[in-house]
């Protein structure tokens, strides 16, 4: 396997005019959405998901991926200039980015963010192109039992590590898998939970589910809550986009540490760009000789998390593309986009679809270059966009959602599915139940059920025979450790909370 011929093939694929165009669309939309508050990457990707059905799978993935890592660039702009994070992964950038803007160093912060993001992105791409093929060829020996175990690990880790109640996260995974059973059972041909309707025989549409859960529910919580922003032109100045030599010298370390941490957290299931950004900020504060500068406009505190979240955005594709197991809801949508085109993600993907895999990897290079070009000179345009009032925005988002859902099968029923999941999504928000594990369960559900049933047939119904396989046993053991650890830490957090409320009750 010659890596250079693969890279050449990828470059050739990524440089076709169509792919180049959609790569540009992707990063452009990503930056736009990252800058706009009140709409996140996940909502945006689910909104544009149906459009990609009409594209070639490689082109579709290039565009969706562009939106994904583009939001990380755009998100930092809102964080630095307005102290409002465009997305969760750039929340930590506010801590030092906004103080820098107030000191009139917004230009430097934005420039160093763009450079750091590019560095992190490139670092992540290199890690991705080295590790993904290796992991994929190792995983080729996996049987149904190993796959089942890997997916369970992915689901449990993603729902247990995410914030909030562990039980609710797990319940949402289970609900997601249950919703995925709706439709024709591939093994027996029985129509399950269709209530005689032909519209759901193929299952509920993943795009309608995602748009309802993320898009519609997000609009409902943001209407009248997201104020349009009055920008004070004096709050930042572009006098100097050029960082001083001092800025650059003190950024090398954070950039290197940030991208290493980011690459690690991006590839692990359950963690992702947000965790990477928070951890790398904490690490910089720890290793700094002057930790007291943090929170008051330290350049390291801006560069490190922004580098980390971009590296994590790229390495999140490692488990997705090499094993077919998404580590986050966004990655689940990428898998969904592949499956819609009849491509089964898994270790065979790298070998069987080299132009898709390497084309996507090379498009990351192009996308990252485009992002630097888009972000530095056009920063004024993005800043002006920050003041678009939300009451113009949300009817437009709704329109995209409705037409998008309708255009998949030209069926009004799919629009009603969006309605149903919008309602469910809002109920889940009220009850404090996270939607991301539900989507993960929904995407992995059919595969889990299939592999589980097949593994049990092969093991003649003996579950211990499944566990006794070395890789399966090790993975399921690790899953159990994660589960117990998160339940225990959740219980401890609940104890602390109860102690605090009792204390408050006594003081009253």
């Amino acid at each position, binding site marked *: 396997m010659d890596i250079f011929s693969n890279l050449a093939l990828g470059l050739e694929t990524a440089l076709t005019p169509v792919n180049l165009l959609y790569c540009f669309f992707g990063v452009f939309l990503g930056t736009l959405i990252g800058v706009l508050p009140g709409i996140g990457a996940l909502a945006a990707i689910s909104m544009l998901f149906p459009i990609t059905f009409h594209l070639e799978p490689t082109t579709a993935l290039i565009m969706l991926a562009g939106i994904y890592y583009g939001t990380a660039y755009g998100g930092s702009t809102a964080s630095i200039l307005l102290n409002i994070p465009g997305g969760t992964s750039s929340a930590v950038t506010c801590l030092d980015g906004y103080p820098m803007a107030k000191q009139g160093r917004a230009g430097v912060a934005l420039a160093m963010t763009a450079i750091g993001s590019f560095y992190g992105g490139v670092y992540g791409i290199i890690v991705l192109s080295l590790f993904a093929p290796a992991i994929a060829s190792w995983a080729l020996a996996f049987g149904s039992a190993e796959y089942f175990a890997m997916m369970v690990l992915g689901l449990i880790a993603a729902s247990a590590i995410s914030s909030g109640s562990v039980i609710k996260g797990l319940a949402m995974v289970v609900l997601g898998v249950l919703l995925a059973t709706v439709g024709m059972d591939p093994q027996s041909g029985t129509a399950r939970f269709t209530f005689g309707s032909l519209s759901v025989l193929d299952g509920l549409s993943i795009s309608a589910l995602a748009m309802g859960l993320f898009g*519609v529910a997000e609009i*409902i919580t943001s209407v009248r809550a997201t104020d349009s922003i009055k920008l004070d032109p004096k709050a930042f100045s572009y006098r100097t986009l050029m960082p001083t030599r001092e800025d650059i010298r003190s950024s090398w370390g954070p950039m290197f540490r940030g991208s290493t941490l980011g690459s690690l957290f991006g590839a692990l299931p359950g963690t992702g760009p947000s965790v990477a950004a928070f951890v790398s900020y904490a690490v910089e504060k720890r290793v700094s000789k002057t930790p007291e500068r943090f929170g008051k406009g330290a350049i390291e505190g801006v560069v490190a998390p922004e580098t980390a979240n971009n590296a994590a955005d790229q390495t999140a594709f490692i488990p997705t593309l090499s094993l077919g197991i998404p580590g986050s809801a966004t990655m689940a949508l990428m898998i969904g986009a592949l499956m819609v085109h009849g491509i089964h993600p898994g270790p065979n993907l790298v070998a069987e679809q080299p132009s898709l895999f390497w084309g996507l990897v090379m498009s990351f290079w192009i996308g990252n270059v485009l992002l630097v070009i888009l972000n530095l000179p056009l920063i004024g345009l993005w800043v002006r966009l920050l003041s678009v009032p939300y009451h113009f925005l949300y009817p437009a988002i709704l329109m995209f959602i409705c*037409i998008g859902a309708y*255009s998949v099968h030209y069926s009004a029923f799919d629009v009603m599915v969006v309605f149903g999941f919008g309602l469910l999504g809002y109920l889940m928000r009220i009850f404090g139940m996270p939607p991301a594990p539900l989507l993960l369960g929904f995407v992995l559900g059919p595969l889990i059920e299939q592999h589980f049933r097949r593994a049990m*047939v092969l093991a003649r119904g003996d579950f211990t025979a499944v566990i006794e396989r070395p890789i399966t046993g090790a993975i399921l053991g690790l899953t159990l450790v994660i589960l117990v650890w998160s339940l225990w830490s959740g219980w401890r957090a609940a104890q602390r909370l109860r102690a605090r409320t009792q204390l408050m009750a006594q003081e009253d």
Partner: protein
Amino acid sequence: MLDLNVRELSGGLFLTALGAAFALYALANYSIGTVTRMGPGMVPLSLGVVLTVFGIVVTLGARWKPSETEEIRVFVPAVILVSIVAFAALIKPFGLLPAVFASAAIATLAEGRVRPRLVLALGLTLCVMAWLIFVVALQLPLSLFAWPF
């Protein structure tokens, strides 16, 4: 001192009901099979039971959770959801543009005010956008206007 958190309680009951519904429906309608040869009902039944158990845990947990004060909206979700239903109802019989205009007009009401000029401007802008993006650029076969009668 019975200090139940109503929101947690209803969330837990909601999960319990969902899980029980899936499990009972699967049990009644699909063959369960054996562990070696699982029927189509096995996975929904077992997961339904698991969901029911999670629901019961959350319900019982409501006893200890402190109550939150985040607002629950009724008006905004109702308006937004109605605007989606309007789109679904209009798209087939009347075509794309009436559906877009009507859903946008309804959606603007979520702000809590009726603003005719905003509705008109926004609705027309979105119609032009929908036409340009979906029909001209993406070339989807959507009929712009239709008349069912």
